[in-house]
């Protein structure tokens, strides 16, 4: 694997160089091939058709390739529909082109691919799939001023870095971990809970939030074990968990490990219930776990497809074209639609022009009504819980549909402003430096000085922010309720 990764990285670098070669006019290198697509829109009405490139990044090789392909299909479907509509933006006929890239779910590769997309002058980026690749890549898009909407990166840090270009159309892991933890400790009567994660930004982040939530409602965490996102053998850690007599095992990670893990739990005679997050909420999990998947739980931000506003129609159209939906395809579809909707409202396909409009999105998507808060997180995101019954994921409950609201968990800074103001008491720092600072902090947990981080979004300095009401802002937000 190592070798093949090195080779494909070299290839990717070579490809990136090639793309730089055929980029735009600023490039000093002679363009050997004609530019395949003009990214910048031409204002002259004489040029009737403009091609707009949208980047899409997900792992297309490796253990998560099936999820990556699913995401790409979601984006492709949106783009095909948009092209069929024949949109006109800024007086020019718009044709969308998807630039699909593979980041192998590897943070290093994620940044290489991000740079490649920036060099190819894409107008917007959809993705990446994994939090671990999305977070480092978001810095590159931010520096280039390219809007990025992820349909599946759920780690809270992604939007906490203060990058005005970062958005997601899915509830984050703070909410998910809280709901899962409360469910495990209360509803599943888990007296001793074991937690395993795969040490990726996503798995670790979700497991940490889960642990906090379990402890907060008085549950006991018996063991905290680790694996990695390429492992196949979990006998050692599961044997240890068995000796601790855990009755619930939570796994923060993807289905390629979660499935075999559930299976090995059964063959080790571990009777505990298995619970996993959105990464394990796929048909692939059931396939890999076999009979051991029966009765196990997973959670997924959002509501089930058949309860989504446009879920049924989307599901039918998608299945007809690409087969079964794995996981995130509807979210990615919405991400593309939100981005294009912003272009329409801005009447421009230029990143700098339609970026402010993304934050003001009010779009009725397939998955939900999409509005962003000031950080770029989805407003009012909900979490659904599923259980395997007769070899199929079956919807159990949803925290919002059940009438129980969500709340901002402790330790998360309140919403910052996007309007270009500096929160009171924060020293003005040039935006560029601040963003570096944010990246540097990225690996070190949530920032200690919240106000300065928020300031990353507000470029003009000196103007004080209006006093934002402290969380919760409304009774609805202050439920703090469990399932």
């Amino acid at each position: 694997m190592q070798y093949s990764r090195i080779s494909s990285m070299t290839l990717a670098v070579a490809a990136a160089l090639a793309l730089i070669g055929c980029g735009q006019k600023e490039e000093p290198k002679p363009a050997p091939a004609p530019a395949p697509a003009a990214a910048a829109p031409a204002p002259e009405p004489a040029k009737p058709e403009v091609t707009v490139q949208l980047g899409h990044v997900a792992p297309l090789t490796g253990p998560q390739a099936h999820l990556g392909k699913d995401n790409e299909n979601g984006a492709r479907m949106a783009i095909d529909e948009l092209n069929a509509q024949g949109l006109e933006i800024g007086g020019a006929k718009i044709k969308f082109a998807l630039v699909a890239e593979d980041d192998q779910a590897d943070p290093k590769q994620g940044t290489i691919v991000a740079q490649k997309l920036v060099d190819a002058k894409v107008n917007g980026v959809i993705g990446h799939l994994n939090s671990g690749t999305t977070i480092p890549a978001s810095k590159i898009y931010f520096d280039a001023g390219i809007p990025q909407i992820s349909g599946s990166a759920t780690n809270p840090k992604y939007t906490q870095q203060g990058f005005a270009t970062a958005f997601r159309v899915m509830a984050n892991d703070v909410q998910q971990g809280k709901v899962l933890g409360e469910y495990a400790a209360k509803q599943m009567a888990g007296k001793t809970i074991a937690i395993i994660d795969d040490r990726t930004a996503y798995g670790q982040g979700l497991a940490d939030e889960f642990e906090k939530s379990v402890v907060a409602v008085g549950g006991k965490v018996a063991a905290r074990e680790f694996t990695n996102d390429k492992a196949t053998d979990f006998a050692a850690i599961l044997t240890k968990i068995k000796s601790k007599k855990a009755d619930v095992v939570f796994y923060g990670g993807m289905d390629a490990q979660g499935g075999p893990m559930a299976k090995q739990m059964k063959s080790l005679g571990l009777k505990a219930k298995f619970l996993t997050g959105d990464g394990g909420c796929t048909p692939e999990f059931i396939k890999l776990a076999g009979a051991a998947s029966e009765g196990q739980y997973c959670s997924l931000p959002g509501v089930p497809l058949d309860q989504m506003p446009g879920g049924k129609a989307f599901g039918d159209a998608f299945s007809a074209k690409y087969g079964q939906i794995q996981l995130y395809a509807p979210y990615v579809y919405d991400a593309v639609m939100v981005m294009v909707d912003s272009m329409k409202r801005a009447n421009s396909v230029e990143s700098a022009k339609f970026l402010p409009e993304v934050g003001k999105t009010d779009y009725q998507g397939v998955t939900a009504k999409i509005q962003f808060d000031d950080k770029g997180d989805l407003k009012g995101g909900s979490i659904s819980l599923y259980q395997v019954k007769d070899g199929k994921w079956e919807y159990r409950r949803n925290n919002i549909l059940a009438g129980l609201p969500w709340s901002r968990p402790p330790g998360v800074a309140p919403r910052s402003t996007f309007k270009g103001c500096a929160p009171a008491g924060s020293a003005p720092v040039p935006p560029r430096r601040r963003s570096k600072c944010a990246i540097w902090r990225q690996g070190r947990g949530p920032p200690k000085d919240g106000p300065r981080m928020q300031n990353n979004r507000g470029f003009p300095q000196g103007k004080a922010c209006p006093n934002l009401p402290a969380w919760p802002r409304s009774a609805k937000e202050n439920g703090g309720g469990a399932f």
Partner: protein
Amino acid sequence: MIGAMVALTVIKLLAASGLPVFVIILVALAAAAAVCMAVGYTIERIAYRPLRRAPKLAPLITAIGVSIILQNLAMLIWGRNYHAFPPILPTSQHEIFGATITSLQVAIVLIAALMMTGLIILIHRTRLGRAMRATSENPPIAQLMGVNINQIISFTFIIGSALAAVAGLMVSANYSIAHYYMGFMLGLKAFTAAVLGGIGNIAGAVLGGILLGLIESLGAGYIGDLTGGFLGSHYQDIFAFFVLICVLIFRPSGLVGEKVSERA
């Protein structure tokens, strides 16, 4: 990896046919072994034989190249997904002194023991085995004694590939999954086990493999408690290579390795 993938394909094809499980597995094994033998022979012919007189580093580099080619070929043929093993094998569990073991795992241990015994007999009790040992000790002298070393090396590759096919099937049956790069870590660990036990000594390699497995599992299970949470079970893979480095430093010929006498 190729063995596992071929076996899996055959099993999937035959699973619906209603044949007894035992027959399906045997057919799959035969197919996997046949394909692996052919691949092994071809690799030897293309990647190693032309380099017989080249410096020792050259075959190592072609080995890495071949491994990349094989992985990517497998990715093209079988796709990028994890493949689940059809649930046709018995999975009854047995409790032995508090440890749980499935009948499948018992079968795997027995088959492995059987194959190792067979290999030891082959190498130490047959003409072919004697020729192999002679070739490994000193190829030019073996050639002078009338051993066709090219033929012997090809045979060794074919036998090794067949054993790898069986191993691949057993690994994928145990974990119920197969995918195109499953062999990489396994290959590294097998090499570590062989070095630990002593290259050129089958009993030593078996001992090395068992030791390595125990060190890894116990290490992953207890390191968290022993270091007070400073190191966790995600350091599981490190043990194998830590042991490898220690052995290379302190006992370069392995735990039960034969002393290689320096000839003038």
